[in-house]
Protein backbone atom coordinates (compact mmCIF):
# COMPACT_ATOMS: atom_id res chain seq x y z
CA UNK A 1 0.00 0.00 0.00
CA UNK A 2 1.41 3.32 -1.05
CA UNK A 3 0.47 6.77 0.16
CA UNK A 4 -2.88 7.88 -1.20
CA UNK A 5 -2.44 10.48 -3.90
CA UNK A 6 -5.39 12.80 -3.34
CA UNK A 7 -4.97 14.60 -6.59
CA UNK A 8 -5.05 11.35 -8.55
CA UNK A 9 -8.09 10.20 -6.63
CA UNK A 10 -9.86 13.48 -7.42
CA UNK A 11 -8.95 13.22 -11.11
CA UNK A 12 -10.13 9.66 -11.29
CA UNK A 13 -13.46 10.61 -9.74
CA UNK A 14 -13.92 13.31 -12.35
CA UNK A 15 -12.99 10.88 -15.08
CA UNK A 16 -15.65 8.43 -13.86
CA UNK A 17 -18.28 11.22 -13.68
CA UNK A 18 -18.41 10.75 -9.90
CA UNK A 19 -19.70 13.55 -7.73
CA UNK A 20 -17.34 15.53 -5.49
CA UNK A 21 -18.81 16.14 -2.03
CA UNK A 22 -17.84 18.84 0.52
CA UNK A 23 -15.74 16.47 2.66
CA UNK A 24 -13.77 15.12 -0.29
CA UNK A 25 -10.31 16.41 -1.01
CA UNK A 26 -10.27 18.91 -3.89
CA UNK A 27 -7.59 21.08 -5.46
CA UNK A 28 -7.46 24.69 -4.29
CA UNK A 29 -8.13 26.14 -7.71
CA UNK A 30 -11.23 23.92 -8.11
CA UNK A 31 -12.51 25.15 -4.74
CA UNK A 32 -11.79 28.78 -5.60
CA UNK A 33 -13.36 28.55 -9.02
CA UNK A 34 -16.54 27.08 -7.54
CA UNK A 35 -16.76 29.60 -4.69
CA UNK A 36 -16.47 32.41 -7.19
CA UNK A 37 -18.96 30.94 -9.62
CA UNK A 38 -21.58 29.83 -7.07
CA UNK A 39 -21.45 33.07 -5.08
CA UNK A 40 -21.75 35.13 -8.27
CA UNK A 41 -24.71 33.03 -9.21
CA UNK A 42 -26.27 33.62 -5.75
CA UNK A 43 -25.65 37.37 -6.02
CA UNK A 44 -27.33 37.38 -9.45
CA UNK A 45 -30.44 35.84 -7.93
CA UNK A 46 -30.54 38.42 -5.15
CA UNK A 47 -29.88 41.44 -7.34
CA UNK A 48 -32.28 39.91 -9.88
CA UNK A 49 -35.10 40.37 -7.35
CA UNK A 50 -34.86 44.14 -7.85
CA UNK A 51 -35.76 44.76 -11.49
CA UNK A 52 -38.81 42.50 -11.30
CA UNK A 53 -39.66 43.56 -7.77
CA UNK A 54 -39.98 47.03 -9.26
CA UNK A 55 -43.41 45.98 -10.63
CA UNK A 56 -44.89 44.04 -7.68
CA UNK A 57 -46.94 46.94 -6.33
CA UNK A 58 -48.10 47.83 -9.87
CA UNK A 59 -48.95 44.39 -11.28
CA UNK A 60 -52.13 44.94 -13.30
CA UNK A 61 -54.24 42.03 -12.02
CA UNK A 62 -54.44 40.16 -8.73
CA UNK A 63 -53.36 36.97 -10.41
CA UNK A 64 -50.38 38.70 -12.05
CA UNK A 65 -49.42 40.11 -8.66
CA UNK A 66 -49.44 36.67 -7.02
CA UNK A 67 -47.44 35.16 -9.87
CA UNK A 68 -44.83 37.91 -9.80
CA UNK A 69 -44.50 37.96 -6.03
CA UNK A 70 -44.05 34.18 -5.97
CA UNK A 71 -41.48 34.44 -8.73
CA UNK A 72 -39.41 37.07 -6.96
CA UNK A 73 -39.60 34.97 -3.82
CA UNK A 74 -38.32 31.95 -5.79
CA UNK A 75 -35.31 34.00 -6.91
CA UNK A 76 -34.56 34.80 -3.28
CA UNK A 77 -34.89 31.09 -2.46
CA UNK A 78 -32.40 30.26 -5.22
CA UNK A 79 -30.01 32.78 -3.71
CA UNK A 80 -30.38 31.05 -0.38
CA UNK A 81 -29.60 27.52 -1.66
CA UNK A 82 -26.67 28.82 -3.64
CA UNK A 83 -25.17 30.71 -0.69
CA UNK A 84 -25.52 27.50 1.31
CA UNK A 85 -23.84 25.47 -1.46
CA UNK A 86 -20.97 27.99 -1.53
CA UNK A 87 -20.67 27.86 2.27
CA UNK A 88 -20.05 24.11 2.03
CA UNK A 89 -16.76 25.03 0.32
CA UNK A 90 -15.54 26.97 3.33
CA UNK A 91 -16.65 30.55 2.74
CA UNK A 92 -19.26 32.41 4.81
CA UNK A 93 -22.40 34.33 3.93
CA UNK A 94 -20.94 37.47 5.50
CA UNK A 95 -17.82 37.22 3.39
CA UNK A 96 -19.85 36.75 0.21
CA UNK A 97 -22.28 39.56 1.05
CA UNK A 98 -19.42 41.87 1.84
CA UNK A 99 -17.93 41.18 -1.59
CA UNK A 100 -21.28 41.95 -3.23
CA UNK A 101 -21.98 45.10 -1.23
CA UNK A 102 -18.54 46.60 -1.75
CA UNK A 103 -18.78 45.94 -5.48
CA UNK A 104 -15.91 43.41 -5.49
CA UNK A 105 -18.09 40.49 -6.53
CA UNK A 106 -19.78 40.32 -9.90
CA UNK A 107 -23.37 39.39 -10.66
CA UNK A 108 -25.16 38.89 -13.94
CA UNK A 109 -24.93 42.15 -15.90
CA UNK A 110 -28.43 41.76 -17.28
CA UNK A 111 -29.86 43.03 -13.99
CA UNK A 112 -28.22 46.39 -14.57
CA UNK A 113 -30.88 47.15 -17.18
CA UNK A 114 -34.11 48.84 -16.04
CA UNK A 115 -37.63 47.37 -16.19
CA UNK A 116 -39.50 50.27 -17.78
CA UNK A 117 -42.91 48.79 -18.45
CA UNK A 118 -45.01 45.83 -17.39
CA UNK A 119 -43.92 44.06 -20.59
CA UNK A 120 -40.39 44.02 -19.22
CA UNK A 121 -41.58 41.65 -16.49
CA UNK A 122 -42.67 39.27 -19.25
CA UNK A 123 -39.50 39.77 -21.27
CA UNK A 124 -37.28 39.10 -18.26
CA UNK A 125 -39.15 35.89 -17.40
CA UNK A 126 -39.25 34.64 -20.95
CA UNK A 127 -35.90 35.73 -22.39
CA UNK A 128 -33.61 36.27 -19.39
CA UNK A 129 -34.76 33.19 -17.49
CA UNK A 130 -34.75 31.30 -20.79
CA UNK A 131 -31.12 32.22 -21.41
CA UNK A 132 -30.25 31.45 -17.79
CA UNK A 133 -31.75 27.96 -18.12
CA UNK A 134 -29.68 27.32 -21.23
CA UNK A 135 -26.56 28.21 -19.27
CA UNK A 136 -27.64 26.34 -16.18
CA UNK A 137 -29.08 23.12 -17.46
CA UNK A 138 -25.60 21.66 -17.85
CA UNK A 139 -24.83 22.56 -14.25
CA UNK A 140 -27.32 19.96 -13.03
CA UNK A 141 -24.59 17.44 -13.92
CA UNK A 142 -21.70 19.50 -12.66
CA UNK A 143 -19.09 17.67 -10.61
CA UNK A 144 -19.71 19.41 -7.27
CA UNK A 145 -22.64 17.68 -5.53
CA UNK A 146 -24.25 20.54 -3.57
CA UNK A 147 -24.12 22.82 -6.63
CA UNK A 148 -25.55 20.16 -8.95
CA UNK A 149 -28.40 19.42 -6.55
CA UNK A 150 -29.23 23.10 -6.08
CA UNK A 151 -29.31 23.48 -9.87
CA UNK A 152 -31.81 20.66 -10.34
CA UNK A 153 -34.34 22.53 -8.23
CA UNK A 154 -33.45 25.93 -9.64
CA UNK A 155 -33.79 24.78 -13.25
CA UNK A 156 -37.24 23.36 -12.55
CA UNK A 157 -38.42 26.66 -11.11
CA UNK A 158 -36.76 28.70 -13.83
CA UNK A 159 -38.55 26.75 -16.56
CA UNK A 160 -41.79 27.54 -14.80
CA UNK A 161 -40.87 31.23 -14.70
CA UNK A 162 -39.99 31.16 -18.37
CA UNK A 163 -43.42 29.79 -19.24
CA UNK A 164 -45.09 32.41 -17.05
CA UNK A 165 -43.06 35.15 -18.73
CA UNK A 166 -44.07 33.91 -22.15
CA UNK A 167 -47.70 33.71 -21.05
CA UNK A 168 -47.53 37.34 -19.94
CA UNK A 169 -46.09 38.32 -23.35
CA UNK A 170 -48.89 36.39 -25.06
CA UNK A 171 -51.52 38.46 -23.23
CA UNK A 172 -49.80 41.63 -24.42
CA UNK A 173 -49.01 40.55 -27.97
CA UNK A 174 -52.63 39.50 -28.57
CA UNK A 175 -54.05 42.36 -26.53
CA UNK A 176 -54.79 45.99 -27.38
CA UNK A 177 -52.55 47.89 -29.84
CA UNK A 178 -50.95 49.69 -26.88
CA UNK A 179 -50.21 46.37 -25.17
CA UNK A 180 -48.68 44.96 -28.33
CA UNK A 181 -46.52 48.04 -28.70
CA UNK A 182 -45.39 47.60 -25.11
CA UNK A 183 -44.41 43.99 -25.84
CA UNK A 184 -42.47 44.94 -28.97
CA UNK A 185 -40.65 47.73 -27.16
CA UNK A 186 -39.63 45.36 -24.36
CA UNK A 187 -38.35 42.80 -26.86
CA UNK A 188 -36.36 45.51 -28.66
CA UNK A 189 -34.67 46.55 -25.45
CA UNK A 190 -34.03 43.08 -23.97
CA UNK A 191 -32.91 41.21 -27.11
CA UNK A 192 -29.25 42.20 -27.22
CA UNK A 193 -28.65 42.30 -23.45
CA UNK A 194 -30.05 38.74 -23.36
CA UNK A 195 -27.67 37.62 -26.10
CA UNK A 196 -24.83 39.09 -24.03
CA UNK A 197 -25.74 36.78 -21.15
CA UNK A 198 -23.88 33.92 -22.87
CA UNK A 199 -20.62 35.82 -22.53
CA UNK A 200 -18.11 37.16 -25.06
CA UNK A 201 -17.55 35.41 -28.40
CA UNK A 202 -15.47 32.22 -28.18
CA UNK A 203 -12.51 33.85 -29.94
CA UNK A 204 -12.30 36.42 -27.14
CA UNK A 205 -13.38 34.20 -24.28
CA UNK A 206 -10.64 33.49 -21.77
CA UNK A 207 -9.61 29.88 -21.86
CA UNK A 208 -12.23 27.86 -20.02
CA UNK A 209 -10.32 24.60 -20.20
CA UNK A 210 -10.60 23.96 -16.45
CA UNK A 211 -14.32 24.71 -16.42
CA UNK A 212 -14.84 22.07 -19.08
CA UNK A 213 -12.51 19.58 -17.41
CA UNK A 214 -14.41 20.03 -14.12
CA UNK A 215 -17.77 19.55 -15.83
CA UNK A 216 -18.78 23.08 -14.91
CA UNK A 217 -19.19 24.00 -18.54
CA UNK A 218 -20.04 21.73 -21.48
CA UNK A 219 -20.72 24.05 -24.39
CA UNK A 220 -19.09 27.24 -25.59
CA UNK A 221 -20.64 30.71 -25.37
CA UNK A 222 -21.27 30.91 -29.10
CA UNK A 223 -22.88 27.46 -29.25
CA UNK A 224 -25.27 28.36 -26.47
CA UNK A 225 -26.07 31.76 -28.00
CA UNK A 226 -26.87 30.13 -31.35
CA UNK A 227 -29.12 27.60 -29.66
CA UNK A 228 -30.94 30.36 -27.79
CA UNK A 229 -31.65 32.30 -31.00
CA UNK A 230 -32.83 29.14 -32.78
CA UNK A 231 -35.15 28.33 -29.90
CA UNK A 232 -36.52 31.87 -29.49
CA UNK A 233 -37.36 32.72 -33.11
CA UNK A 234 -40.45 30.50 -33.47
CA UNK A 235 -41.72 31.87 -30.13
CA UNK A 236 -41.22 35.44 -31.32
CA UNK A 237 -42.93 34.73 -34.63
CA UNK A 238 -45.90 33.18 -32.86
CA UNK A 239 -46.32 36.42 -30.91
CA UNK A 240 -46.22 38.41 -34.17
CA UNK A 241 -43.23 40.37 -32.88
CA UNK A 242 -39.89 41.06 -34.54
CA UNK A 243 -36.30 41.16 -33.31
CA UNK A 244 -34.38 44.43 -33.66
CA UNK A 245 -31.91 42.85 -36.09
CA UNK A 246 -32.12 43.36 -39.85
CA UNK A 247 -29.48 40.70 -40.44
CA UNK A 248 -31.39 37.95 -38.75
CA UNK A 249 -32.34 35.23 -41.23
CA UNK A 250 -32.60 31.46 -41.48
CA UNK A 251 -29.48 29.79 -42.83
CA UNK A 252 -30.44 26.48 -44.41
CA UNK A 253 -26.83 25.26 -44.62
CA UNK A 254 -26.17 25.50 -40.89
CA UNK A 255 -29.82 24.79 -40.01
CA UNK A 256 -29.81 27.81 -37.76
CA UNK A 257 -30.28 31.55 -37.80
CA UNK A 258 -27.63 34.06 -38.80
CA UNK A 259 -27.82 37.08 -36.51
CA UNK A 260 -25.93 40.22 -35.50
CA UNK A 261 -23.56 40.19 -32.58
CA UNK A 262 -24.54 42.37 -29.63
CA UNK A 263 -22.55 45.52 -29.00
CA UNK A 264 -19.60 44.16 -27.04
CA UNK A 265 -18.45 47.67 -26.13
CA UNK A 266 -21.71 48.13 -24.26
CA UNK A 267 -21.24 44.71 -22.64
CA UNK A 268 -17.82 45.73 -21.30
CA UNK A 269 -19.12 49.10 -20.14
CA UNK A 270 -21.95 47.48 -18.16
CA UNK A 271 -19.57 44.95 -16.59
CA UNK A 272 -17.29 47.81 -15.57
CA UNK A 273 -20.17 49.43 -13.71
CA UNK A 274 -21.49 51.84 -16.30
CA UNK A 275 -24.80 50.16 -17.14
CA UNK A 276 -28.03 52.12 -16.66
CA UNK A 277 -28.71 50.69 -13.18
CA UNK A 278 -25.41 49.35 -11.75
CA UNK A 279 -25.18 52.07 -9.14
CA UNK A 280 -28.86 51.90 -8.20
CA UNK A 281 -28.81 48.12 -7.79
CA UNK A 282 -25.79 48.22 -5.53
CA UNK A 283 -27.14 51.20 -3.61
CA UNK A 284 -30.44 49.40 -3.11
CA UNK A 285 -28.73 46.25 -1.77
CA UNK A 286 -26.58 48.36 0.54
CA UNK A 287 -29.54 50.36 1.81
CA UNK A 288 -31.52 47.22 2.75
CA UNK A 289 -28.46 45.65 4.32
CA UNK A 290 -27.59 48.74 6.36
CA UNK A 291 -31.16 49.39 7.43
CA UNK A 292 -31.43 45.74 8.46
CA UNK A 293 -28.30 45.87 10.63
CA UNK A 294 -30.19 46.59 13.86
CA UNK A 295 -32.60 43.70 13.12
CA UNK A 296 -29.72 41.24 12.75
CA UNK A 297 -28.02 42.65 15.86
CA UNK A 298 -31.23 42.31 17.86
CA UNK A 299 -31.66 38.70 16.74
CA UNK A 300 -28.08 37.90 17.73
CA UNK A 301 -28.36 39.65 21.09
CA UNK A 302 -31.64 37.87 21.82
CA UNK A 303 -30.19 34.46 20.91
CA UNK A 304 -27.19 35.14 23.14
CA UNK A 305 -29.40 36.03 26.10
CA UNK A 306 -31.47 32.90 25.54
CA UNK A 307 -28.32 30.75 25.59
CA UNK A 308 -27.10 32.45 28.77
CA UNK A 309 -30.45 31.88 30.46
CA UNK A 310 -30.42 28.27 29.31
CA UNK A 311 -26.90 27.72 30.67
CA UNK A 312 -27.71 29.47 33.93
CA UNK A 313 -30.80 27.32 34.46
Amino acid at each position, binding site marked *: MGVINFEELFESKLAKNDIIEPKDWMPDNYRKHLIRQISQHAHSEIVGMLPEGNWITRAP*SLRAKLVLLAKVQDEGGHGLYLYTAAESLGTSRDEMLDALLTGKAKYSSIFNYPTLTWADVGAVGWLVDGAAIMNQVMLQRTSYGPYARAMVRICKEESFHQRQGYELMTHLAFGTPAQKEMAQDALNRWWYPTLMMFGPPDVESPNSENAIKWRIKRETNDELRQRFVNQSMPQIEYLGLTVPDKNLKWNETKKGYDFSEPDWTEFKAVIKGNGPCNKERLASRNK*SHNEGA*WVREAATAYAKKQNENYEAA
Partner: protein
Amino acid sequence: MTSQEALFNYNLRLGDTSLILAQRLSEWTGHGPFLEEDLALTNIALDIFGRGKALLEYAAKTEGKGRTEDDLAFFRNDREYFNALITEQPNGDYAKTIVRQALIDCFDLAFYSELSKSKDETLAGIAAKSIKEITYHKRHSFSWVNRFGNGTEESFNRLQNGLNEIWPYAGELFEMNEVDALLIKEGIAVDLSMLKANWEKEISQLLAKANLVAPEGTYVQTGSRKGLHGEHLSYILAEMQSLPRMHPTAKW
Protein backbone atom coordinates in the same frame (compact mmCIF):
# COMPACT_ATOMS: atom_id res chain seq x y z
CA MET B 1 -80.12 47.44 3.24
CA THR B 2 -80.76 43.93 1.91
CA SER B 3 -78.77 40.95 3.14
CA GLN B 4 -77.14 40.75 -0.25
CA GLU B 5 -75.98 44.37 0.00
CA ALA B 6 -74.73 43.73 3.51
CA LEU B 7 -72.83 40.64 2.42
CA PHE B 8 -71.29 42.52 -0.50
CA ASN B 9 -70.08 45.23 1.86
CA TYR B 10 -68.81 42.68 4.38
CA ASN B 11 -66.85 40.85 1.68
CA LEU B 12 -65.37 44.12 0.47
CA ARG B 13 -64.32 45.02 4.00
CA LEU B 14 -62.53 41.68 4.45
CA GLY B 15 -61.14 41.57 0.91
CA ASP B 16 -59.87 45.16 0.96
CA THR B 17 -58.29 44.71 4.37
CA SER B 18 -56.33 41.71 3.09
CA LEU B 19 -55.43 43.33 -0.21
CA ILE B 20 -54.12 46.59 1.25
CA LEU B 21 -52.17 44.85 4.00
CA ALA B 22 -50.54 42.51 1.48
CA GLN B 23 -49.79 45.45 -0.81
CA ARG B 24 -47.97 47.14 2.07
CA LEU B 25 -46.10 43.94 3.05
CA SER B 26 -45.01 43.31 -0.52
CA GLU B 27 -43.20 46.66 -0.50
CA TRP B 28 -40.58 44.82 1.60
CA THR B 29 -39.91 42.15 -1.04
CA GLY B 30 -36.30 42.38 -2.12
CA HIS B 31 -35.58 44.88 0.65
CA GLY B 32 -35.87 42.81 3.84
CA PRO B 33 -33.32 43.06 6.66
CA PHE B 34 -31.79 39.72 5.62
CA LEU B 35 -32.59 37.07 3.07
CA GLU B 36 -34.48 34.55 5.23
CA GLU B 37 -36.70 37.31 6.62
CA ASP B 38 -37.27 38.75 3.15
CA LEU B 39 -38.55 35.34 2.07
CA ALA B 40 -40.68 34.90 5.20
CA LEU B 41 -42.41 38.27 4.88
CA THR B 42 -42.99 37.73 1.16
CA ASN B 43 -44.57 34.40 1.99
CA ILE B 44 -46.90 36.09 4.43
CA ALA B 45 -47.79 38.72 1.81
CA LEU B 46 -48.55 35.93 -0.67
CA ASP B 47 -50.93 34.20 1.76
CA ILE B 48 -52.75 37.45 2.46
CA PHE B 49 -52.99 38.43 -1.22
CA GLY B 50 -54.40 34.99 -1.94
CA ARG B 51 -57.04 35.46 0.73
CA GLY B 52 -57.83 38.96 -0.54
CA LYS B 53 -58.27 37.65 -4.07
CA ALA B 54 -60.67 34.92 -2.92
CA LEU B 55 -62.68 37.40 -0.85
CA LEU B 56 -62.93 39.93 -3.66
CA GLU B 57 -63.99 37.20 -6.06
CA TYR B 58 -66.77 36.39 -3.66
CA ALA B 59 -67.59 40.08 -3.27
CA ALA B 60 -67.94 40.39 -7.05
CA LYS B 61 -70.21 37.37 -7.07
CA THR B 62 -72.42 38.68 -4.26
CA GLU B 63 -72.69 42.03 -5.97
CA GLY B 64 -74.03 40.25 -9.05
CA LYS B 65 -73.35 43.04 -11.52
CA GLY B 66 -70.85 41.19 -13.65
CA ARG B 67 -67.80 42.83 -12.12
CA THR B 68 -64.70 40.71 -11.42
CA GLU B 69 -62.29 40.78 -8.49
CA ASP B 70 -59.91 42.79 -10.66
CA ASP B 71 -62.61 45.35 -11.45
CA LEU B 72 -63.15 45.74 -7.73
CA ALA B 73 -59.46 45.98 -6.91
CA PHE B 74 -58.40 48.30 -9.71
CA PHE B 75 -61.42 50.45 -10.53
CA ARG B 76 -62.70 51.64 -7.16
CA ASN B 77 -61.63 54.92 -5.56
CA ASP B 78 -60.43 55.27 -2.01
CA ARG B 79 -63.90 56.36 -0.83
CA GLU B 80 -65.23 53.01 -2.08
CA TYR B 81 -62.56 51.01 -0.24
CA PHE B 82 -63.33 49.52 3.19
CA ASN B 83 -59.94 48.23 4.36
CA ALA B 84 -59.20 48.75 8.06
CA LEU B 85 -57.14 51.91 8.60
CA ILE B 86 -54.34 49.96 10.29
CA THR B 87 -53.51 48.17 7.03
CA GLU B 88 -52.85 51.31 5.01
CA GLN B 89 -50.38 52.79 7.50
CA PRO B 90 -46.87 53.09 6.06
CA ASN B 91 -44.48 50.23 6.85
CA GLY B 92 -42.02 52.42 8.72
CA ASP B 93 -39.04 50.42 9.93
CA TYR B 94 -39.09 46.68 10.41
CA ALA B 95 -40.21 47.03 14.03
CA LYS B 96 -43.30 48.99 13.05
CA THR B 97 -44.17 46.54 10.28
CA ILE B 98 -43.79 43.64 12.73
CA VAL B 99 -45.82 45.17 15.54
CA ARG B 100 -48.60 46.17 13.12
CA GLN B 101 -48.57 42.59 11.89
CA ALA B 102 -48.72 41.17 15.42
CA LEU B 103 -51.78 43.26 16.31
CA ILE B 104 -53.51 42.20 13.08
CA ASP B 105 -52.47 38.52 13.26
CA CYS B 106 -53.82 38.27 16.78
CA PHE B 107 -57.14 39.69 15.61
CA ASP B 108 -57.21 37.68 12.38
CA LEU B 109 -56.57 34.31 13.97
CA ALA B 110 -59.52 34.75 16.33
CA PHE B 111 -61.66 36.32 13.63
CA TYR B 112 -61.11 33.71 10.91
CA SER B 113 -61.42 30.87 13.43
CA GLU B 114 -64.92 32.17 14.21
CA LEU B 115 -65.71 32.93 10.57
CA SER B 116 -64.92 29.31 9.66
CA LYS B 117 -68.17 28.46 11.54
CA SER B 118 -70.19 30.92 9.43
CA LYS B 119 -73.43 29.75 7.83
CA ASP B 120 -72.11 31.21 4.59
CA GLU B 121 -70.22 28.29 3.10
CA THR B 122 -67.92 30.36 0.89
CA LEU B 123 -66.79 32.57 3.75
CA ALA B 124 -66.45 29.55 6.04
CA GLY B 125 -64.30 27.83 3.40
CA ILE B 126 -61.99 30.80 2.86
CA ALA B 127 -61.69 31.22 6.62
CA ALA B 128 -60.91 27.56 7.26
CA LYS B 129 -58.09 27.69 4.72
CA SER B 130 -56.71 30.86 6.32
CA ILE B 131 -56.46 29.54 9.88
CA LYS B 132 -53.33 27.50 9.27
CA GLU B 133 -51.66 30.38 7.44
CA ILE B 134 -52.49 32.94 10.10
CA THR B 135 -51.30 30.60 12.84
CA TYR B 136 -47.90 30.70 11.18
CA HIS B 137 -48.05 34.48 10.59
CA LYS B 138 -48.86 35.06 14.24
CA ARG B 139 -46.04 32.83 15.43
CA HIS B 140 -43.70 34.80 13.18
CA SER B 141 -44.79 38.29 14.24
CA PHE B 142 -45.11 37.43 17.94
CA SER B 143 -41.64 35.87 18.01
CA TRP B 144 -40.13 38.98 16.42
CA VAL B 145 -41.92 41.31 18.85
CA ASN B 146 -40.42 39.27 21.66
CA ARG B 147 -36.98 39.29 20.02
CA PHE B 148 -37.01 43.04 19.44
CA GLY B 149 -38.32 43.74 22.93
CA ASN B 150 -35.58 41.62 24.47
CA GLY B 151 -32.85 42.23 21.88
CA THR B 152 -30.92 45.47 21.95
CA GLU B 153 -31.77 48.90 23.29
CA GLU B 154 -32.22 50.09 19.72
CA SER B 155 -34.58 47.28 18.76
CA PHE B 156 -36.62 47.90 21.90
CA ASN B 157 -36.87 51.65 21.23
CA ARG B 158 -37.86 51.11 17.63
CA LEU B 159 -40.49 48.60 18.67
CA GLN B 160 -41.97 50.93 21.29
CA ASN B 161 -42.05 53.79 18.74
CA GLY B 162 -43.69 51.55 16.17
CA LEU B 163 -46.29 50.48 18.69
CA ASN B 164 -47.00 54.11 19.65
CA GLU B 165 -47.57 54.99 16.01
CA ILE B 166 -49.78 52.03 15.13
CA TRP B 167 -51.75 51.61 18.34
CA PRO B 168 -54.50 54.22 17.66
CA TYR B 169 -55.54 52.24 14.57
CA ALA B 170 -55.97 48.85 16.26
CA GLY B 171 -59.29 49.55 18.00
CA GLU B 172 -61.11 50.06 14.72
CA LEU B 173 -60.72 46.37 13.92
CA PHE B 174 -63.54 45.70 16.42
CA GLU B 175 -65.94 48.33 15.12
CA MET B 176 -69.34 47.10 13.95
CA ASN B 177 -72.18 48.75 12.07
CA GLU B 178 -75.56 47.84 10.55
CA VAL B 179 -73.84 45.40 8.17
CA ASP B 180 -72.56 43.35 11.08
CA ALA B 181 -75.88 43.56 12.92
CA LEU B 182 -77.78 42.22 9.93
CA LEU B 183 -75.32 39.45 9.11
CA ILE B 184 -74.80 38.35 12.72
CA LYS B 185 -78.55 37.75 12.90
CA GLU B 186 -78.25 35.46 9.89
CA GLY B 187 -75.33 33.55 11.39
CA ILE B 188 -72.97 34.81 8.69
CA ALA B 189 -70.81 37.46 10.32
CA VAL B 190 -68.63 37.26 13.42
CA ASP B 191 -69.70 39.23 16.48
CA LEU B 192 -66.52 41.24 16.99
CA SER B 193 -67.42 42.26 20.51
CA MET B 194 -66.90 38.60 21.48
CA LEU B 195 -63.28 38.72 20.35
CA LYS B 196 -62.14 41.86 22.06
CA ALA B 197 -61.44 40.67 25.63
CA ASN B 198 -59.25 37.82 24.48
CA TRP B 199 -57.37 40.00 22.00
CA GLU B 200 -56.65 42.53 24.74
CA LYS B 201 -55.44 39.76 27.04
CA GLU B 202 -53.14 38.19 24.45
CA ILE B 203 -51.74 41.52 23.33
CA SER B 204 -51.11 42.74 26.86
CA GLN B 205 -49.23 39.49 27.57
CA LEU B 206 -47.18 39.93 24.43
CA LEU B 207 -46.38 43.55 25.27
CA ALA B 208 -45.42 42.63 28.82
CA LYS B 209 -43.09 39.90 27.59
CA ALA B 210 -41.43 42.43 25.29
CA ASN B 211 -41.28 45.08 28.05
CA LEU B 212 -43.54 47.36 26.02
CA VAL B 213 -46.07 49.83 27.34
CA ALA B 214 -49.29 50.35 25.43
CA PRO B 215 -49.89 54.07 24.93
CA GLU B 216 -52.55 55.19 27.38
CA GLY B 217 -55.71 57.07 26.61
CA THR B 218 -55.14 57.05 22.90
CA TYR B 219 -58.11 58.06 20.86
CA VAL B 220 -59.22 55.31 18.45
CA GLN B 221 -59.04 56.35 14.82
CA THR B 222 -61.99 55.15 12.76
CA GLY B 223 -63.66 55.77 9.44
CA SER B 224 -62.89 52.86 7.12
CA ARG B 225 -66.27 51.19 7.64
CA LYS B 226 -67.74 54.26 5.92
CA GLY B 227 -65.01 54.42 3.30
CA LEU B 228 -63.21 57.26 5.06
CA HIS B 229 -59.45 56.81 5.09
CA GLY B 230 -56.26 58.66 5.85
CA GLU B 231 -54.14 60.34 3.21
CA HIS B 232 -52.10 57.21 2.51
CA LEU B 233 -54.72 55.08 0.80
CA SER B 234 -55.15 57.16 -2.33
CA TYR B 235 -51.39 56.94 -2.94
CA ILE B 236 -51.44 53.17 -2.50
CA LEU B 237 -54.29 52.95 -5.00
CA ALA B 238 -52.69 55.41 -7.42
CA GLU B 239 -49.68 53.13 -7.63
CA MET B 240 -51.55 49.84 -7.59
CA GLN B 241 -54.22 50.86 -10.13
CA SER B 242 -52.11 52.90 -12.54
CA LEU B 243 -51.71 50.29 -15.26
CA PRO B 244 -55.29 48.98 -15.51
CA ARG B 245 -56.59 52.54 -15.38
CA MET B 246 -54.25 53.59 -18.17
CA HIS B 247 -55.49 50.67 -20.29
CA PRO B 248 -59.10 50.21 -19.16
CA THR B 249 -60.06 47.80 -21.96
CA ALA B 250 -56.94 45.63 -21.68
CA LYS B 251 -56.78 42.08 -20.32
CA TRP B 252 -53.59 41.04 -18.53
